[in-house]
């Protein structure tokens, strides 16, 4: 493989990986607090792309306004899902909430199928981001530089929030011990809602960038990115935001590089992540940065 090709693959892997990472953060934060795999997270990711699509094509809003509105709407949807489908099950066995999450996931997918039909919608193009730039023989989409930068900025902002602000402190406290935090006078349900909001906002950012990179929006586009991002979260160590990002990047690199070096394996692409998952769970179930916690496994 030529050097130029390798550089292009690296940029592709960075883009894909940072998008996985952004989605994975939503899984990891919710899991850290509630021990719940939020199955609907991938569908939240999907719906943000639809929001942007309709805000731009129907309401003719400028891009920046549409993106901000879509992120806000998606964050609100994430909070709503928690309020309706998960909060009534806080005291129930954990698997009940998981079944509820699967129900929400199917509901969102199919309501989108009903409302928007299964025909993929073309994402409006933002020419600035998709005109190829050429460095010698290397051809790169500006998007491939833009996506990782935005992703890292968002993660940096999230980490600042987690470690330097009172709500961030409350979130970390809840993931240690939810009852003790409640006793300290923290409004736990509000913090959990905030967690869902933040996670969904990040998923929305990822969804919009995903739709720019792979410009087809359809009701099931969130299923596989969702599963894979969850695997990235497990890989990085569930509960850890940095871990989720690292896991996402790692998964992005593994997927892109295996196919780059072994093109004959490309049919198996969707299986890599799952094989990886079973391997990690076998070797080191706590992931790369995860802490040892008995009841997690």
């Amino acid at each position, binding site marked *: 493989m030529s050097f130029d090709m390798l550089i292009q693959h690296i940029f592709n892997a960075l883009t894909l990986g940072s998008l996985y990472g952004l989605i994975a953060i939503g899984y990891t934060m919710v899991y850290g607090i509630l*021990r*719940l*795999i939020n199955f609907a997270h991938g569908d939240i990711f999907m719906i943000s792309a639809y929001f942007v699509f309709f805000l731009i094509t129907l309401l003719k809003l400028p891009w920046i306004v549409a993106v901000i509105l879509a992120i806000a709407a998606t964050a609100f949807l994430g909070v709503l899902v928690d309020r309706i*489908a998960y909060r*009534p*099950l806080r005291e*129930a066995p*954990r*698997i*009940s909430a*998981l*079944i*509820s999450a*699967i*129900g*929400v996931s*199917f*509901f969102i*997918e*199919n*309501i*989108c*199928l*009903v409302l928007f*039909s*299964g025909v993929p919608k073309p994402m409006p193009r933002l020419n600035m981001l998709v005109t190829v730039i050429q460095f010698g023989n290397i051809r790169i989409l500006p998007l491939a530089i833009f996506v990782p930068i935005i992703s890292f900025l968002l993660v940096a902002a999230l980490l600042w929030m987690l470690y330097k602000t009172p709500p961030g402190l409350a979130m970390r406290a809840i993931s240690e011990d939810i009852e003790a935090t409640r006793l300290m006078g923290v409004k736990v349900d509000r913090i959990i809602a905030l967690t869902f909001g933040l996670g969904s906002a990040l998923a929305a950012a990822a969804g919009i960038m995903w739709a720019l990179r792979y410009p087809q929006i359809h*009701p099931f586009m969130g*299923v596989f990115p969702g*599963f894979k991002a*969850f*695997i990235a979260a*497990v890989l990085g160590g569930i509960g850890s935001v940095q871990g989720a990002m690292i896991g996402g990047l790692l998964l992005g690199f593994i997927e892109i590089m295996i196919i780059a070096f072994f093109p004959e394996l490309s*049919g*198996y692409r*969707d*299986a890599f*992540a*799952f*094989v990886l*998952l*079973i391997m990690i*769970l*076998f070797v080191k*179930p706590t992931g790369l940065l995860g802490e040892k916690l008995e009841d997690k*496994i």
Partner: protein
Amino acid sequence: MQKKTKVILNLLLTLMLALFLRWAQGNLDGYKIQILNLIAVNAILALSLNLIYGFTGMFSLGHAGFMAIGAYVSAILIIPTAQKEIMYILEPIIWPFSVLQAPFFVSVLAGGLVAALFGLLIALPVLRLGGDYLGIATLGFAEIIRVIFTNITSVTNGALGLKGIPPYANLGWNYLWCGMTYFIITKILSSNFGNCLKAIRDDEVAAKAMGINTFKCRAISFAVGAFFAGVGGALMGSLITTIDPKMFNFQLTFNILMIVVVGGLGSITGSMVGAVVITVLLEWLRFLEGTMEIGSFVFVGIPGMRMVIFSLVLLLIIIYRREGIIGGYEFSWDSVARLFQKLKGGRVNE
């Protein structure tokens, strides 16, 4: 009630069911017979998932994978050799799959056994996990199976799938297998081994402390569940005569999970009732997705509407009525006798 009476009552019930099926085969139209068939297959699948999840507490989302294995193994065994040669157009089918043939009963059994073997194989790495991790790992397994089946073209005919599977799975076979599944699973659950499974479900640490080899019990339960999932897949393949890897997606597992949850986790009767209710509803609600004419109005069907309703039903049940529609009630002749005595106003005889 005496044991002998129960045996006689059981035999009577079986006889009545057999007579009903015989009547149905001759008198009902094909669509209704198909629904009756699907009920039996779904009941098998729901019972097997209930054994794994409802009774042993292992949250498995891998059912579609086991069904795929069962369906493919059985289909390859019953499709005539000549037809196989014509069908595999992308890559010719490799030996020994090209020549293997078996009678229907054996092929279904083989489908179940291969699925059980895979169940044991993946039990080793994934059964160490608990709760939701197990769910996601088994889901991963099902996806891996699907991707592999899409790619090993010389065995499975790849994405084209297998067409023209001989439609041997009639009411007789389906209900025979359904009855065997019911019988075997209730026997397992009423044995000492079944008590071990329930103990593991309720408190694994305590079960271990009582000297139960929890890993072994869980692995056996998982393999038995996988066996019947494979059987269900094999029957379904012969019932609808066409299979392809895409069919065995997460949606299929979701439907079975829904039957189990709606019927009631850890309730055999619940799974049977759930299979009837959900299968009939799934078919009946098809009108929502097809085009209809009511008078002069043409109602254009909306794809996805059925699943919207079903996911809402699942959500409502899991949030408001976690024990399922019949609430963990188990059918037994004793309870029927008690009911009769109550209706007569007589004294209840324990």
